[in-house]
């Protein structure tokens, strides 16, 4: 995995999914959550993923995030064939190129906001002093300046989600994957979070892929993909000023 920008690399899309299927269980109990997904995501895109419950959105996001492996199909990240990677290589890919935001925040309890944000940097072996600088900067980006010492239990849901976003972007990922980042938040909080995400995409050039149930949130994205029953049903550009 090099960050090289050879002409060939540049010409390739950031993410290419081809014929991705995912089957849970086996035999009679086998259940196909994904039935052949073809998808291309270019650098700098902001994609919203929508679809009914159980249509395979989270499954697809987990595969994109290298947290899960597809049953069949090809996943090319830049010029790397992800489905051929070992468990360790996938962890390294996550570490260096991917950021995650979960519906349930998934922060470490009893650990301050700052330390939560520092977590990915620890595993990148970045020294304490630098870690502190990057983490404070990330918290500032999501508008949480002054809340560094608070633990998740002392923060509101919206603030917790911002901490989670700060953690996801602190290591400068190429892609930010968010699975229902506003699913647990009220509409005001959701708007604020969406503004943070839009800003990340616009100002920092982070490629964004976000699952949402809410059409009001989806319109913040430039492109919307509709999942239905394990397949992509529709794929359209949003026209919004």
């Amino acid at each position: 995995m090099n960050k090289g920008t050879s002409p060939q690399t540049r010409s390739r899309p950031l993410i290419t999914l081809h014929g991705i299927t995912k089957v849970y269980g086996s035999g009679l109990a086998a259940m196909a959550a994904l039935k052949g997904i073809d998808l291309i995501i270019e650098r700098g895109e902001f994609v919203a993923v929508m679809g009914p419950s159980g249509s395979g959105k989270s499954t697809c996001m987990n595969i994109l995030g290298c947290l899960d492996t597809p049953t069949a199909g090809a996943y090319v990240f830049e010029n790397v064939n992800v489905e051929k990677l070992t468990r360790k290589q996938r962890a390294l890919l996550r570490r260096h190129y991917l950021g995650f935001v979960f519906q349930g925040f998934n922060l470490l309890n009893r650990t301050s906001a700052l330390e939560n944000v520092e977590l990915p940097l620890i595993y990148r072996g970045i020294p304490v002093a630098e870690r502190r600088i990057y983490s404070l900067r990330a918290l500032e980006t999501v508008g949480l300046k002054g809340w560094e010492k608070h633990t998740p239990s002392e923060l509101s849901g919206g603030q917790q989600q911002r901490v989670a976003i700060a953690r996801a972007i602190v290591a400068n990922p190429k892609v930010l994957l968010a699975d229902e980042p506003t699913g647990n938040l009220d509409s005001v909080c959701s708007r604020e979070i969406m503004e943070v995400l839009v800003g990340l995409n616009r100002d920092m050039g982070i490629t964004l892929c976000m699952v949402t149930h809410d059409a009001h949130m989806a319109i913040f994205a430039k492109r919307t993909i509709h999942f239905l029953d394990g397949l992509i049903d529709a794929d359209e550009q949003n026209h919004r000023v």
Partner: protein
Amino acid sequence: MWWETILLALREIRRNLMRSSLTILGIIIGVAAVITMVTLGGGVTAKVTSDIAKLGTNLLLVRPGQGHHGPGGTRSTADAFEVSDAEAIALEIYGLAAVAPVASQVVQGIYGNENWSTTVMGSTNAYLTVRDWLLEKGRTFTDSENRGGKAACILGATVRKELFGGQDPIGAVIRLGKLSFQVVGLFAAKGQSSFGTDQDDFVLIPLRTFQRRIAGNTDVDRIYVSARDGMSTKKVQRDIEALMRERRHIVHGDDDFHVRDMQELLSTMTGTTRVLTGLLGAVAAVSLLVGGIGIMNIMLVSVTERTREIGIRLAVGALERDVLMQFLVEAVVLSSCGGLIGIVVGIIAAIVGAHFLSVPFVFNPGIVLISFVFSGAVGVVFGYFPARQAGQMDPIEALRHE
């Protein structure tokens, strides 16, 4: 990174302080037990060694009867020695420092209103040399007292205390059985032997006096022989055996006497205490192992409890190895803390125990180091399985936990 992992582990341990302390209790007890047992064992060995050395390592003991006789042994049928046997040894064996024939009997000692039952030993001044006795006061027997069988005696410290209290006994006349003896000397106290007997509870009188006035025969119960420094006690032993066989007309090695070398006794005794120490230490080590299982148990619980945390760490880029190390270091820090506390507790217990057993406290740095390393190793061995489980978790399933 290492330092941070250790800090993280310490923080995690502090978070569950109660549980952590209960978990390491097993290790604390195990390490403390090992250190106490081995240290006390070392003290006992040192005490036995110095006691036997006090007997005199050049000392040989010649007694009638066979050395190791079973029930109803042959000892009673063997003829006692006579003074002439001791004289023959002194005369014919080369390389001796002193020879002391001894006969003894338990007798009632009386002074004024005080009354004390003690052992009266008949011997010569050579007894002081062979058994390393010093006089605190007074004198040894004169030639005329020895030869004439006079009624003079030297008191052991216990007899003096029982009969005279704090008074000066020299010159006083005491009764031993039916006879009156003048006290001419007082032995310096030696205290308890490692076998728990009071070495100071005896009265020494001239052998001839003993034979004539107390025993009423010419028997000698045993002969102490002290070899000169640098002489091989083995050779002296063989020479005495040959001489006694000749004197007692024994043809086919069917000896009715035996010669015991104290050097031999020393190595037998220290050998025994070492084996005992080793056994006690091994038993204590088993409790260390049990402590390790306690740690494994709690680490498994901890891994299950912290499944989500593990999922988060894996999701943000931790490798299997990072998570494994985190939990392994936690287990090792935990068990090493137990080891350190156990060392302190064990040393304190050993000091107290040594005081009560009245053996010297012999600090053993080797066993302290071994216990510490071992407690750390217990953490590695018993922490590895739970830590590997943590590292091998599937990130999605771990995140979905709860």
